[in-house]
């Protein structure tokens, strides 16, 4: 409703825009709001905010960093060794294959060109392409039975990012910030750190708010300046120039307010300029890694050009979570992992780019005592097929899509560590045991955040919408710490 009918409670909340000060009071007011208002149809536009909110039950995780490896990392070359393929290398695949690209399909088995070895106390199998990941396996829960079952990028990205195979829906980060707000008043609650090589497939839909209010949209952080839209003034206005402007503006607004006593909207607007200014400094500070020690930077691979870019984003992600951001997602470039061809050179390059930074992130979070309350996720929207695609010589062969069984890993935030869960068949084509569908994964994630996936709903057109949205989800208790 407009200014005429806003009551003091709404003003307090509106004023809080990105959350403001007296959190406890706000919490009480919200509670009070819930009790005092009888059920009403959705006529009165609700006001939304990013104040921290209590979940349905005691949470284990407070924040999440997701590394989204768009394109489909080859699970049988990285996480899920298949000796059966070695035996049949180059021979006709003995079963049925669901291809995506028929024109380049081949029935010939492709054994993994890379060696696997057991690592850590848990003895997890890891490919030689991920030497740094091999060093953190005792902190990791590897999921080998992932399944979305929609064999193309777009749909499967939607499945993992927003819960269904369709677009236009809120993504995971939007749901988490809608449910829980943020622990910071100075930074966006949901941040999307993009790759300088380009946006992932579906672009901004990876962090869209769908039909949730736009307050819960991911704030895209570019890999170069200006990192956040509208956050930074253009160069010529930075520093005193904008400070002068803001203090003059504040003066104008306060003079104006004096003529309009009691106008809470006007007060809220004045506060929102202050908040915006605070955000500028806070976000800048959060993304400035110059103060980090050389050892920390080395841990993330920032000292080496080949790994510096991704390492920097991983380090920024840690800094954001430390400062109360709820959900951070990092992306690799458009189809970085989509190795339809030249997998022998493409996959090692893709791994090299992310291995040091992603492993360093887990190590660093653990060292700082943050891993227990932070979920870390690494994975793409699919895996790959056991057979050759593009059979035009060993250097150019690749693997086609496979969403029927693939791997990804999670760590921290209440997930068991040092375990491997789920299995694909002997060739790695289909998940066959302890299958985790995208909706099972989402239900389980929400659970770690203290949220009941059936209760976390948003009312839209008189229908209650949710992340899992009526799919028959299963809480995967086997991978949660007791």
């Amino acid at each position, binding site marked *: 409703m407009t200014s005429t009918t806003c009551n003091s409670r709404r003003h307090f909340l509106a004023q809080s825009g990105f959350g403001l000060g007296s959190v406890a009071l706000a919490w009480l007011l919200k509670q009070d709001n819930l009790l005092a208002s009888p059920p009403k149809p959705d006529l009165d536009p609700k006001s939304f905010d990013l104040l921290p909110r209590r979940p349905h039950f005691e949470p284990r995780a407070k924040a999440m960093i997701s590394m989204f490896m768009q394109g489909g990392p080859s699970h049988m070359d990285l996480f899920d060794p298949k000796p059966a393929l070695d035996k049949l290398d180059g021979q006709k695949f003995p079963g049925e294959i669901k291809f995506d690209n028929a024109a380049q399909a081949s029935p010939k088995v492709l054994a993994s060109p890379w060696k696997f070895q057991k690592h850590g106390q848990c003895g997890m199998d890891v490919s030689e392409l991920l030497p740094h990941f091999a060093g953190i396996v005792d902190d990791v829960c590897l999921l080998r039975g992932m399944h979305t079952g929609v064999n193309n990028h777009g749909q499967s990205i939607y499945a993992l990012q927003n819960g269904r195979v369709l677009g236009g829906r809120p993504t995971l980060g939007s749901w988490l910030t809608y449910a829980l707000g943020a622990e910071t008043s100075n930074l966006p609650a949901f941040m999307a750190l993009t790759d300088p090589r380009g946006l992932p497939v579906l672009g901004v839909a990876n962090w869209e708010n769908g039909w949730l209010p736009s307050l819960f949209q991911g704030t895209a952080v570019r890999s170069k300046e200006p990192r956040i839209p509208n956050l930074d003034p253009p160069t010529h206005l930075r520093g005193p120039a904008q400070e002068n402007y803001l203090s003059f*503006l504040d003066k104008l607004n306060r003079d104006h307010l004096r003529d309009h006593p009691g106008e809470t909207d006007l007060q809220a607007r004045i506060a929102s300029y202050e908040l915006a200014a605070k955000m500028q400094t806070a976000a800048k500070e959060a993304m400035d890694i110059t103060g980090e020690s050389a050892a920390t930077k080395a841990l993330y691979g920032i000292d080496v050009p080949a790994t510096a870019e991704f390492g920097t984003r991983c380090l920024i992600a840690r800094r954001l979570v430390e400062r109360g951001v709820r959900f951070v997602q990092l992306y690799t470039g458009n189809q970085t992992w989509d190795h339809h061809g030249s997998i022998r050179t493409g996959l090692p390059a893709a791994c090299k780019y992310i291995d040091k930074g992603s492993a360093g992130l887990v190590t660093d979070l653990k060292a700082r005592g943050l891993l227990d309350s932070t979920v870390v996720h690494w994975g793409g929207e699919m895996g790959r097929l056991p057979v050759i695609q593009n059979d035009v010589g060993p250097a150019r062969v690749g693997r086609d899509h496979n969403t029927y069984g693939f791997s990804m890993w999670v760590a921290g935030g209440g997930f068991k560590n040092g375990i491997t869960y789920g299995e694909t068949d002997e060739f790695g084509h289909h998940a066959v045991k302890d299958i985790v569908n995208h909706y099972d994964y989402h239900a389980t994630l929400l659970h770690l955040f203290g949220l009941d996936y059936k209760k976390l709903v948003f009312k839209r057109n008189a229908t209650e919408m949710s992340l899992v949205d009526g799919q028959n989800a299963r809480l995967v208790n086997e991978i949660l710490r007791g």
Partner: protein
Amino acid sequence: MAAPAAKTAATGPLTFEKDIRPILKANCFHCHGEEGKTKGGLDVRLRHLIAKGGEQGAAIVPGKAEKSLLFTMVRDGEMPKGQGKKLPPEKIELLRQWIAGGAKVARAEPAKPGAADEFTPEERAHWAFQPVKRPEVPSIQSSVFSNQSGKERSGSQLNTENWPLKTGSKPHPIDAFIGQKLAAAKLSFSPPADRATLIRRANFDLLGLPPSPAEVEAFEKDTSPDAYEKLLDRLLASPHYGERWGRHWLDIAGYADSDGYTDTDTERKWAWKYRDYVIRSLNADKPFREFIVEQIAGDELVKPPHKNLPPADVDKLTATGFLRMAPDGTANAGVEQKVARNAVVADTIKVVSSSLLGVTVGCAQCHNHKHDPIPQADYYRMRAVFEPGFDLRTWRTPNARLVSLMSDEARAKAAEVEKEAKIIEDARLKKQNEFIDEVLEKELLKRPEELRTPLREAYKTVVAKRTPAQVKLLKEHPTVMQLSPGSLYLYEQKKADELKKQTDEAAKIREKKPAEEFIPVFNETAAKDGPAPTFLFHRGDPDQPKQQLKPGDLTILAALRPVDLPEKDAALPTSGRRLAYARALTDGQHPLTSRVLVNRIWMHHFGRGIVASPSDFGTLGERPTHPELLDWLASEFVAQGWSLKKLHKVIMTSAAYRQASQLSNAEFRISNSKDPDNKLLWRHPIRRLDAEQLRDAQLFVSGRLNPKPGGAPVPIMTDETGQVVVGVNTDDTAGRPSGKFVGLNGEEFRRSLYVQMRRSKPLGLMETFDAPRMEPNCELRNASTVAPQSLALMNGEFALAQAKFFAERVAKEAGDSTDESKVSRAWQLAFSRRPNSTEMSDALGFLSKQRAHFTANAPKEAKVAKGKEPPPTNAEEHALTGLCQALLTANRFLYVE
């Protein structure tokens, strides 16, 4: 906080009919009574059935709530079943009090519950279903106008001969109704707003734009007694009026330039024809009754076939675009057709009912309305009105519903032109073949002689008919094999250029063809077996059709007056259902249409409707703050021939509208303590500019606004950060930025309602300021206050560019080059008034501070991407741009008093 006590005292003893049945209807009937279901043998639709009870015995023991299962099971959360369905404490408390008080009924009950459309007297008595009665205008004391002891205020005064009441004259009827309630609450009107404030308010209200300084000055100087009325007349005659009020209507109609429903969100290329029709109609002050009839049934007013039509008929057809506004994904691949089609019908019903009926008919799609007297069958009766146009049997996708506006004459002309172009084309084709032959021969000459003939033959054989030997031969001679019109340029550029010249020539001729335009139309196609039938869908599921229903008005409304909706009007080629329905809506007797409309108009003037829930006049909606005023306005609107412009004038000439919004602290505190939400209108509310007003006003003040009306929408694109901005998308087919820039030649500065409105891609700046997403339409906008808005104003490209343009304008218009003149001019342009002395000295201080800063820290020249506005170039311009940005982002600019 304790649960609010159940209200009893004021309304007499609790009765089943008035207090309890609505609770049970909303929460319990579904399992305990309706659709033949009586779980546990219990039917709770009548008090005596509850007393009789079910398998567990009597559900109530009058006088003893603790012993009544109806109370205890509800209190303990056992009923209603299902998580999160526990009744709120105040309702449980009502149940307890009712039983404790003896479980009374208001009157003797029938033996059996009535059918769904046998409403209780309580349901029938709901205010919104009563006929509109023109109330007596109350007489009021002049003291209600005298809140202010005639204190002088800044700015010039409105001539105040009507303020307070002239002795012997009657008050404005609106003021009589408002004043009566104010007096009862010991409140009074505020003093009149000063002229600068009033013209700014009226301008933003009617045009969505601020006044120019010259207009402010002229109004302030006009001493004639009808100065204000002349102002209103001038504003109402402006072409911008239709743009502003058209925008309001487009909100509720759910206007968008895309189909929505799927993530593809296909562009809806011709939707703007409807947008322009709305603007045109409002500017012409087309009687709203006609406006409604055309939008619901314009096609039934135009004789088929729908071609070679005069403009008036085109307008009527275009009007039906109203029924084509709902999201429609039925042309998209992969959608479940049945579900998608049903969604189009349901969304269209939602658009019609929320805009014109003001009751949530959609709630009865799956079951009887839980709160209002709308049985499920009513929903399907309403659906039957529109069904023949949808016709699920022969569904038409959005493009199949376009009607061409090309006349036969123009079409003949186009054919003529095509003939001309064809001559050139044929000549080109002939030449192309000659060229290919020439080149082929040259290539053959490069081969050994014995190969030439077989190669030539192989090349000239169509691909499918080539022998394996021929294929092999050609593969060995790729330069022969790959010769084609497309690759000709690789062999002989000159020949290719010559062909290209002819292609261009043909294209040039084709440009002479008259352009073919379309309009999205809702119409009926003649069906042999009569109009499409409508079935009640069990639980709203199109896979479970039940009984067939005829078209009909809501039962509760049809009871007020006979409404005859034909199944098939013999006098028309169409079914005639929508035409009859539209006439029933606008018959002047319909209790909802006129109330809903005047309430919306009122809402847009005051920020809040007399009924604060503009699309729900039902039991869950808000009650009118001034029911008699609402009825007076509704009857006045009808009496004045459904003229919107006359209604504006009636409203805007009232003291309620003309009063000030700012009061001294003490006065504000007293009134505010009595009526903090200003529901009684003891002052004019302060309102934030909405998204369009804000963008348009910045453009207007900066001097860049392009006032061009109508036409195809201004394109939008997604920039590299994912923000949607005005611009031409130059991404390649894979969605990667091409780095190219296409200028818009001033189109980028057109009014916001002309910017393309893709459902999935709202303009970033506008969405930040609460522009709605159409799913399917917008009943009421939000006005939020969040930090991203401030960031957009502080650092956003649009805001910074407008500040720079504004500064350039100020420098030009200031008269002389002194800072004082510039500040004064900037103030007038942005705020419609001159700065006071404090403001002047603050502004001068700011200018010199900024000038000093930029002189000492001259910014390096930065590279500016094509299409982006470069920053100012010297300290002087920087300082003035900063000042202008402050004004364009200040509360005095963002809020209208």
